């Protein structure tokens, strides 16, 4: 990547923070927002907020006030508190599902790209079949059989993203498996398992990891959509998608109940995409690699 040279600070009358000056305001803002969301999710229980499930009948569908900074929903529950606790659900689900999908997809992709032949055909066909199978049927059946819970949402979303990582990992493995250092390792008597682990994995992992932020953005949307359809984390536990779904009936009269969680969801996904794009650029991966 190009070496960042120190640019003279523009004379704006106030001091531009060094980080924003070097990386641009948009990027700095995006990073700051994500830090806030992660911190809020991590510290949700310690923050001086009302209980997200407590119903305050004196304030039902109220606008912002001293008692409830962002107002309350149709059951008199504090919206700010529900958004903060909802961040926890969104982030936990997205992070764990990413980890699950990435691990399985990476292993299968490495095996397919390294061994080729029948194994590769089998894995690629399986991944294609998963893509051809409607995700929603899978998720509805999963929640129908195993019940609606955080674990099942994580497993469901993680499995859905396995084919994406299989394709990414396989495409990159194909490139590196041809390289001289793999040939050298094989000539030196290394077994396949060792070559995959020690020589190929470190090279393939970088481009595959570089997509993780962008996939997390997708996963946050997916979790929101599931909750919106009533298939996500069971209530009363707050989730952004469920908040939006619940407020929809009275949207004409009380739009803030819907628009506040929608705005937070949008902003978080947007910032995740901005940071993710920069992250991927840093690792210098061409966009058409998928």
């Amino acid at each position, binding site marked *: 990547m190009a070496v960042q040279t120190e640019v003279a600070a523009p004379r704006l009358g106030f001091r531009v923070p060094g980080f924003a000056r070097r990386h641009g305001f948009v990027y700095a803002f995006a990073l700051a927002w994500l830090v806030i969301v992660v911190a809020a999710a991590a510290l949700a229980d310690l923050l001086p907020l009302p209980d997200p499930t407590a119903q305050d009948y004196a304030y039902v569908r109220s606008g912002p006030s001293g008692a409830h900074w962002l107002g309350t929903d149709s059951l008199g529950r504090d919206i700010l508190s529900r958004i903060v606790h909802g961040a926890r659900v969104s982030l936990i689900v997205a992070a764990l599902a990413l980890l699950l999908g990435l691990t399985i997809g990476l292993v299968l992709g490495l095996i397919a790209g390294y061994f080729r032949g029948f194994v590769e055909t089998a894995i690629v066909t399986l991944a294609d079949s998963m893509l051809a*199978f409607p995700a929603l049927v899978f998720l509805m059946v999963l929640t129908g059989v195993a019940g609606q819970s955080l674990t099942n949402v994580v497993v469901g979303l993680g499995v859905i993203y396995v084919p994406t990582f299989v394709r990414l990992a396989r495409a990159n493995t194909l490139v590196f498996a041809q390289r001289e250092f793999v040939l050298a390792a094989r000539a030196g008597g290394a077994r396949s398992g060792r070559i995959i682990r020690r020589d190929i994995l470190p090279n393939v992992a970088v481009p595959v990891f570089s997509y993780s932020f962008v996939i997390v953005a997708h996963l946050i949307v997916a979790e929101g959509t599931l909750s919106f*359809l009533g298939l996500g984390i069971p209530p009363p536990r707050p989730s952004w998608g469920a908040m939006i779904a619940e407020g929809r009936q009275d949207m004409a009269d009380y739009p803030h109940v819907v628009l506040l969680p929608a705005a937070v969801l949008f902003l978080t996904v947007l910032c995740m995409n901005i940071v993710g794009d920069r992250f991927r650029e840093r690792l210098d991966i061409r966009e058409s690699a998928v």
Partner: protein
Amino acid sequence: MARLRGLAFKLLQLLAVLIIAGTASFGVLRLLPGDPAVALLGENATPEAVQALHQQLLLDRPLPVQYYHWVVNVLQGDLGDSARNGQPVLDAILNRLPVSIELMILAQVIALLIAIPLGVYGAYRAGGPVDRTTSVVAFGFISIPDFVLGIVLIFVVALKWGLAPATGWVPLSESLLGNLQSVILPAVTLAIGQVALYQRILRSDVIATLQEDFIGLARTKGLGTMYLLFRHALRPSSVSLVTLAGVNIGRLIGGAVVVEVLFALPGVGQLMVQSLSSRDYLMVQGVVLCIAVAYVVVNAAVDLLYRVIDPRVRTAR
């Protein structure tokens, strides 16, 4: 000969995808707890009625027998009848398909009409004001979840301005204007995110193409900028765009579930959700099969299109 073998192999693989997806839909539904006959007849149904329905739906037979019957019927073009209302599954799907397809076509047309000029011009003047503005807006577009955008559009356009109905569907045969009004908001909802994706991928590919020698040659021949961009640069740059659009088309033929549910459109996606919640096994299996077929056909079509768009692919393989 090698090319023919490659094609045959590809076809076999796509067939395998169909078989796996179809079998998975059969198997996975049988895992659901509860008796579909009870779900269909209600809790107060007499044991005799439940048993009669069991016999009618073959639910009293062992699973392999049920599976065998389904496969044999499907191969003869009979997807079975809906357990809910006796309607043939194929008819129900064919009834719903035009809605989903109209929605898909309109969304793709809107997305491509906006994305192609912006993508090509953005690449031509990369880093310029238009390019930078579109890049920022594109990030915003990509980041709006479908259901959020749909809700906001319903709120603003339908409820505040009253320009279109919030939900519901008017068939094309009833009224052209009414049909357009009922499909425009869902189509825009689907298109917005795709505009951004298409614009970004096309822009990066056109930038690469503009570096090539034949573009320099065309320029020295004195061809106009518009002619150069749209006649010479667009076609070889559109491989990734076609792939992406193909994937989206294949996905949307099977119904855009969230948008169809949100706007109450009677498409395939809505049918799938309704049938799943009423345990209409044969209907769900039929819909899944239809979605898998769409996926497979579009994938094969995209593969063939590569050769048409860029003849170099034919020799490169």
